[in-house]
């Protein structure tokens, strides 16, 4: 019973994690296309590509995950606590 519960919780967290990653990635790709001119402007004025990418990634993750985390935070917290107790 305990093992089944652990599997369910891990599956739930993995599924939610995958969903969050996909959402963040899609937002990054969309924003990269939409703000290509900003990307080129920053790079064209000497900002290293690594730094520009990091800025876009951070922004995309923040925009994609913030509303999602606000919606699921309690369920995720419960799932993590339960998992820790079971382990």
């Amino acid at each position, binding site marked *: 019973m305990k093992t089944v519960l652990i599997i369910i919780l891990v599956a739930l967290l993995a599924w939610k994690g995958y969903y969050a990653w996909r959402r963040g990635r899609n937002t990054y790709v969309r924003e990269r296309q*939409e703000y290509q*001119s*900003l990307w*080129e*402007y920053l*790079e*064209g*004025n*000497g900002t290293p*590509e690594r730094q520009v990418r990091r800025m876009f990634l951070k922004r995309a993750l923040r925009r994609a995950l913030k509303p999602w985390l606000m919606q699921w935070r309690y369920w995720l917290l419960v799932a993590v606590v339960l998992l820790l107790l079971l382990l």
Partner: protein
Amino acid sequence: MMLELHNVSIGRLISSLSLTVEDGRLVCLTGAEGAGKTTLLRAVMGFLPIDEGHISIDGELLTPKSAPYFRRQMAYVPQLLTVPDDYPLDTRYVSLLTHAVESHKPLLIVDEPPQQLSQEDAMLVDGLLTEASQKGTTILAVNGRVQSKRVTL
């Protein structure tokens, strides 16, 4: 900083173009819409690959590997800049140009705005370009008004 283009071809737009912008000089690109002015500037920035020929800056070849090094010494004013609503940047053309000139980089790459500038802004832009050139900045700009060496695409 000297910028040289040798027999550069890019797609169907630009064919065997050779051009030299000597150190501290201003060269203006002119041509009809769609003639390849922005394409050429993007190639000089290293954002677009060229099909033939080569671009060099101070005698060093511009390659995908060397482009980031050269870009650190350039200031770039794009044709149009779209930024997110919460991004703290004044995207008006004149502001971008002022910022670029004030950065005191040795090479300035300036595209033209998509819409016609007011007479006041046009004078300001031309003044900024002339002043930067007089101070020794090498400039390649899309501009049909400033008195300078012109290259028509």
